[in-house]
């Protein structure tokens, strides 16, 4: 198994940390890690060696039967892959057509965490969840640092500071974690989601759920909403945004552009110095004006377009990711060899290319 250093810009995580090397070795794999692969995640080459991995000066992609990474491999790397090799990473199929074609041509079996079915058995391999956990936590820290106010309430001799109001839009894994973290810091938190079950989940974290007068969706995942629906939703959300000091948006629809929930007018109505953190910025943004990786001022309001937040906390993000990889690998290993059985509902769900075929319809 090989772990190349991440080559995409600003990726600080690593797909295999020293802690997971030894269980992989136990499972019958030999682990190769490129020199400096764990550098940003404070995983030293020495630690890899100590854990039983071989640290290679060169990219180990060409020699490996299994290549694990966080971001998709580059086209160049993909061209090095052995025919029939297995890759595991986030693949973002919509954006990586060319890469998929390379995989297809080289008869690579590629797995993408984006597509992992969210069934009970697959939970331990669910990297979307584990990274969303990190993102939700970091989103609040980012907001708190940028907010020129306190989050918690303080009654002091120099007057009373009221608690900040935080609004979380979208209460999936990241949104829930953002709620929890903001509550920990003492903010008053409100949240909204289209999913029906989200209400109870939000309240179970001690936050207030906004009951909007909208027909809402049942089921575990949000599906695409009509533009009228979104229009109406924005109307109702508007006044809550105006009253908030921090807005964190996490609304997403798997594989689609994110719904637009916040408008410039709403931001203008917020108190000066307020902050919007848009976790959906990479898939278009819940605020149309947010750009991933950039901070922009809209009037007196700061808009933070989040770009790969998990990567800003590389040690733990990598550790969780690496466990997810390990757990997914375990589903493929039989008798010490990696031999993915595509009859398994989980592997079937997240296998994108196999045996020279692209197995999913791409959007």
């Amino acid at each position, binding site marked *: 198994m090989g772990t190349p250093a991440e080559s995409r810009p600003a990726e600080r995580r690593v797909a295999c940390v020293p802690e997971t090397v030894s269980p992989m070795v136990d499972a019958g794999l030999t682990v190769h890690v490129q020199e400096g692969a764990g550098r940003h995640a404070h995983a030293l080459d020495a630690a890899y060696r100590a854990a039983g991995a071989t640290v290679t000066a060169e990219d180990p992609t060409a020699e490996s039967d299994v290549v694990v990474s966080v971001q998709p491999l580059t086209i160049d790397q993909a061209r090095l892959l052995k025919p029939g090799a297995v890759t595991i990473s986030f693949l973002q199929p919509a954006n990586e057509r060319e890469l998929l074609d390379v995989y297809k041509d080289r008869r690579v079996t590629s797995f993408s965490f984006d597509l992992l079915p969210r*069934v*009970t*058995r697959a*939970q331990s391999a669910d990297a979307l969840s584990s990274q969303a956990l990190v993102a939700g936590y970091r989103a609040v820290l980012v907001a708190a640092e940028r907010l020129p106010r306190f989050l918690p309430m303080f009654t002091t001799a120099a007057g009373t500071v009221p608690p900040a109001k935080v609004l979380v839009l979208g209460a999936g*894994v990241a949104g829930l974690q953002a709620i929890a973290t903001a509550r*920990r810091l003492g903010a008053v938190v409100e949240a909204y989601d289209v999913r029906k079950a989200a209400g109870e989940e939000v309240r*179970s*974290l001690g936050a207030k759920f906004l009951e909007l007068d909208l027909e809402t969706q049942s089921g575990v995942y949000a599906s695409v909403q009509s533009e009228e629906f979104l229009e109406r939703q924005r109307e109702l959300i508007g006044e809550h945004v105006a009253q908030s000091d921090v807005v964190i948006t996490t609304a997403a629809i798997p594989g689609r552009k994110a719904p637009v929930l916040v408008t410039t007018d709403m931001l203008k109505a917020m108190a000066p110095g307020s902050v919007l953190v848009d976790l959906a910025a990479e898939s278009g943004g819940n605020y149309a004006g947010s750009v991933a990786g950039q901070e922009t001022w809209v009037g007196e309001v700061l808009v933070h377009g989040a770009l790969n937040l998990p990567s800003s906390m590389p040690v733990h993000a990598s550790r969780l990711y690496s466990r997810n990889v390990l757990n997914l690998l375990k589903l493929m290993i039989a008798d010490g060899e990696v031999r993915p059985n595509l009859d398994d509902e989980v592997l079937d769900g997240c296998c994108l290319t196999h045996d020279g075929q692209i197995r999913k319809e791409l959007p």
Partner: protein
Amino acid sequence: MTVQLMYLVAALCFILALKGLSSPKYARYGNFIGAFGMLVAVVTAYLHGAVHNGLWILVAVALGVVVGIPAARSVKMTAIPQMVALFNGVGGAAAALVALAEFFAVRDPGFLYLLATVLTVLIGSVSFSGSVVTFLKLQELMTTRPVLLPAGQQLAIAAGVSSVALCALTIATPNGFLLWLLAAVGLALGVLFVLPVGGADVPIAISLLNAFTGLAVAASGYVLANTLLIVAGTLVGASGTILTRLMAQAMGRSLANILFGAFKATTVVAHGEEQRTVKSGTVEDVAILLGYANNVVVVPGYGLAVAQAQHAVRELVAQLERRGVTVSYGIHPVAGRMPGHMNVLLAEADVPYEQLKELDDVNPGITSVDVAVVVGANDVVNPGARDEPSSPIYGMPIFDVDRAKSVVFMKRSMRPGFAGVDNELLYNPKTTLLFGDAKDSLTKLLAAVKQL
């Protein structure tokens, strides 16, 4: 005078015995004191009253001891209720026999005396035959389901009416034969009374028959003009009545319902779907279970979050620890609805991190856990995930709480958890269900544990 004083001492002992038996701390002493009082009473009675037949009496007592002690010693814990029923029955019979014998001994009885006599005979025999039937039911020598005779209700009414008539007749024209007849009708009445009682209500019936026997003894006290019998019998009658009411309440049945239900032959349906029974306990049961345990694991789940019961659970655990119970929390990786959901909650309630245990810390030692308390969790303790390859959650690691010595399960209903899969653990005989909102249940439990 000394004799009377000794009887008074015995009566005192009985009061103290009942008092002791009502508190977990003193229950055993209570029983000892009761036994001691009995010894005093019996020895006194023997020394003072066994003018004739002393040897015979000794033989009868010895026989009773030889039969009673081994029976009580060897009976299995699970068979104790029917044993109690049997002992109660023979007590009732003894009372009836005493009244009969006295009736033949006395000349020229007065009204009150006769009244007491017929009551003793009637109640004693009802208690005897009723107890025997409950014994048969519990021992499964006959069906445990309510038995509905074709004209059961009419028969019971007939027996009731004729017993009242016989009583009146006996008082009016004292006559041994009538008394025997009364005893026979009493026996029939007892059988008719208990036959339609089924399943879960049998212990309540036993308790009621126990109170009956108490009353019979008190009545026989009037017959013999013996204060001790009056006091002791009344005590048992009164406390037995209260106890019967409490038991009925604890099972969510009204006493009237059971009493008249018995004659009206209401079927008693087992809880649960598809006729599967679950055992639902009261807060006090669970409090005692926890309070006297050594080793407890709390497994919280999404329900804890929904109920916002994090503070309540911490308080309960703190109270248990104050009693010397070792408690830890079993935190399942996917408990709740987001990663780390339980951590967030329990950190808010200031639960020390050291108390949070993971699967691998808990499962290996689970068999030595006295009570596993499942608070609003479900899927994460579903043994199906371990045992049933066909289950949609098969393969998820779980807390093996079904291997603990006992399980307390707090939830609001029989609904399944997130995965929508039924949980076998709910029907496990080790499991006591505590229905209701988790916060509510925990708060009540805390109060109850403090009372121990």
